[in-house]
């Protein structure tokens, strides 16, 4: 695909309660495979997607959290987390399973303005 656009995926939902987080990740991988400029934003309950130590055996559901660590292999390196959302949930950067850039809401808003396509599921 010749035209490259800036795609941002905004994640506002926690994992497992609904399928959105998992199916969103599938779109992220395909978008990167089409050589688009991809960034991920985690805000509100979406920050829970990145919580370390997810153990899903007891709910008989696939643990897809290791995929976030594999994103680097697909050249997806722009992972952003909203600081306020982390704080509201009693989390710090150390609780997250992958390296992220933590941003203020003003910084998040400015970054959103730079995008061509914003997808949220």
């Amino acid at each position, binding site marked *: 695909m010749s035209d490259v656009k800036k795609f941002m995926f905004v994640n506002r939902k926690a994992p497992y309660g609904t399928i959105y987080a998992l199916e969103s990740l599938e779109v992220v991988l*395909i978008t990167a495979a089409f050589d688009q400029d991809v960034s991920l934003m985690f805000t509100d309950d979406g920050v829970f997607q990145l919580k370390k130590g997810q153990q899903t055996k007891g709910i008989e559901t696939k643990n897809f959290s290791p995929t976030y660590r594999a994103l680097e292999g697909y050249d997806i390196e722009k992972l952003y987390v909203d600081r306020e959302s982390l704080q509201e949930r009693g989390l710090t950067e150390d609780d997250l399973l992958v390296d992220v850039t933590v941003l203020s809401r003003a910084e998040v808003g400015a970054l959103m303005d730079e995008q061509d396509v914003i997808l949220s599921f």
Partner: protein
Amino acid sequence: MKFGIVVNEGPYQHQASDSAYLFAKAAIEAGHEVWRIFFYHDGVNNASKLTEPPQDDRNIVNRWTKLAEEHKVDLVVCVAAALRRGIREENLATGFRISGLGQLVEAGTKCDRLVTFGD
């Protein structure tokens, strides 16, 4: 202007399908092109020809089919999401086609605007 639309919820359960349809219709009436509508998550259920609403209710599936026929709107159902939910060629309504997520990415790159309807 060229529009792409994403529908993430199933018909009847959530208003998203209705909102998306009314938006698409208004865009066409205003002279714009609705180039593709991509159905994802439970949105794939919009494509089931087995759908049979009560007579006094709107037929959401037929409405999409008519839109595709009259205005050449490309209705694409995500294959992975569809297989998970039992939507296959056998029960696919007229006007829809099953394809990959690349079609969503393409809608993002080719359309002037991409509008998402979901939960």
